[in-house]
């Protein structure tokens, strides 16, 4: 009796979940696979002729292969920002966790500020312009690093606390300097949290829309999230290409999700239980 109710509850749940959470994605897929006229009707139906690959090709080729360039830009942005973020925030977390002093209060406060305070748009543009970094990929990389530091430091610090101090001390007695202790002994041990940080931040940076919009304007610099918008204005009626573009930029997070779902959830809920 009890198992039966559970079964029905489960089936009802699945049906509702599918309608609410999966139908929108099916809609994206179907519309991206339709021909232009059929897509324009915006109906939720299977495409009569599947033109998915052709639409992908058209979306990629539009406006002098803008989407291809955007994918390259976004990849560079994501990879470089995350590399810098991982190394720098691990260094901060290591020192802050190991060394107790009055500076820790200051650093904790700054980390909290970084998490809470909304960045000031125009003054940041002003800083970038003064440094000659406005409208450059390098400038945007610094921005992503600056805005991502707080979250990464929090994750790393919690993990460094679980690494026994004996390890550093052994290495120090063997005559290793601080740099060697960190990079040869500690950093390799951070592997699992590094994976978490990389995954979570790559989703954040790859999906970032506002920062490229503010700090990296211009078609030749487009990142993937901005191409969707340019498509929308240019092809206001070409819904098949718009959705093909949306589908294409959803594929990287989808792949991450399929293979590393558990790791992502782990990273995003880290610290939540402890408060």
């Amino acid at each position, binding site marked *: 009796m009890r198992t039966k109710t559970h079964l029905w509850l489960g089936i009802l749940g699945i049906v509702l979940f599918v309608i609410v959470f999966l139908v929108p994605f099916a809609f994206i897929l179907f519309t991206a696979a339709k021909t232009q006229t059929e897509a324009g009707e*915006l109906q939720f139906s299977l495409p009569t002729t599947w033109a998915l690959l052709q639409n992908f090709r058209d979306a990629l080729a539009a406006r002098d292969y803008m989407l291809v360039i955007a994918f390259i830009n976004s990849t560079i942005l994501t990879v470089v920002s995350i590399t810098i973020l991982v190394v720098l925030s691990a260094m901060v977390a290591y*020192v802050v966790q190991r060394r107790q002093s009055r500076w820790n209060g200051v650093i904790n406060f*700054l980390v909290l500020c970084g998490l*809470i305070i909304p960045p000031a748009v125009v003054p940041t543009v002003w800083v970038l312009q003064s440094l000659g970094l406005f409208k450059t990929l390098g400038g945007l990389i610094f921005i992503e690093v600056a805005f991502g*530091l707080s979250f990464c430091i929090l994750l790393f610090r919690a993990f460094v606390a679980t690494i026994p101090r004996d390890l550093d001390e052994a290495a120090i007695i063997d005559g290793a300097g*601080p740099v060697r202790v960190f990079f040869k002994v500690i950093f390799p041990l951070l592997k699992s949290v590094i994976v978490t940080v990389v995954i979570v931040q790559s989703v954040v940076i790859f999906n970032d829309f506002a920062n490229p919009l503010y700090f990296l304007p211009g078609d030749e610099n487009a990142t993937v999230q901005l191409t969707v918008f340019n498509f929308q204005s240019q092809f206001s009626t070409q819904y098949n290409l718009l959705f093909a573009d*949306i589908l294409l930029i*959803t594929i990287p997070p989808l792949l991450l999700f399929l293979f590393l779902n558990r790791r992502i959830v782990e990273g*995003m809920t880290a610290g939540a239980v402890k408060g």
Partner: protein
Amino acid sequence: MSTEVKPRQTVGPAVTAPAPPPAVRRKSPYPYWFCLPAAVIFFVFFVVPTFSSFFFSLTRWDLTTWEFIGLDNYVNFFQESALLTSLKNTLIYAVVTCGLKVVLGMLLALLLTSQIIARGFLRSVVFFPVLVSTIGVGLTFQVLMDPSGLINDGLALVGINGPAWLVDPKTALLSVALVDVWKGVGLATVIFIAGIVSIPREYFEAAAVDGASAFQRFRRIILPLSRPATTTVIILALIGGLRSFDLIWAMTRGGPGFTSDVIASVIYKQYQAGFYGLSTAGNVVLFILVTAIVFPLFRYFARQEVDL
């Protein structure tokens, strides 16, 4: 921060010397210069803009030259009804999305920690939208929420006459908020699940022995013991809601008229229009709003934790 770290690095050992013998403590194996690169980037690209925003919000400004005009930008901001609406909308948006994420996230977490079939699959399905591009979601729902679009077709099937969603000034903001909840509830759910799973089983066993009902179990065990998770969800959702820009920009661009503008979208619009001082004043207003709401909440929750 960089200026604070540097002196410490040079005079630090001398200052800390009194306690342990200087010979042992000469150089810490955990040097503060490790913080320096991160500190410089954080300082230049976050702290400097934040502090200078207070100054530039008092000026008329074109990025190279500025003219001090006192509080004119703020007077403008609070006199223009469209801008005042954005302030009100920001609060409504943050409260609605935060409230719905907490309630729905908790309900979903209860469902997904109970013994239902396909639990793992359903958890994944709820979480997936968190990872998807906000802009993609926004544009998709813009199509789905068309007055004669898929959602209203679906509602008509069960006999509900759907609203005009984004086209109607009265429902536009709330429609965007609903999509925000759709996209973000998965994160709240997995945080609640992590909180519920970490509750020791003994409590439930004891409750079962005492013959507690399902509701009592929720009210007396799950709710109080998953409080840290609730705190996290509330604070994350509030910060996200107050700063929200992407989704609103993708779906309505603040329209129809200015009815779904929030402070973040006003900041961008004024920036595009070249009113840099006014845009920065908007930033300061948002800064004050976020800190005035979130910091006290942080402190309040921190104190609650101690009481427990």
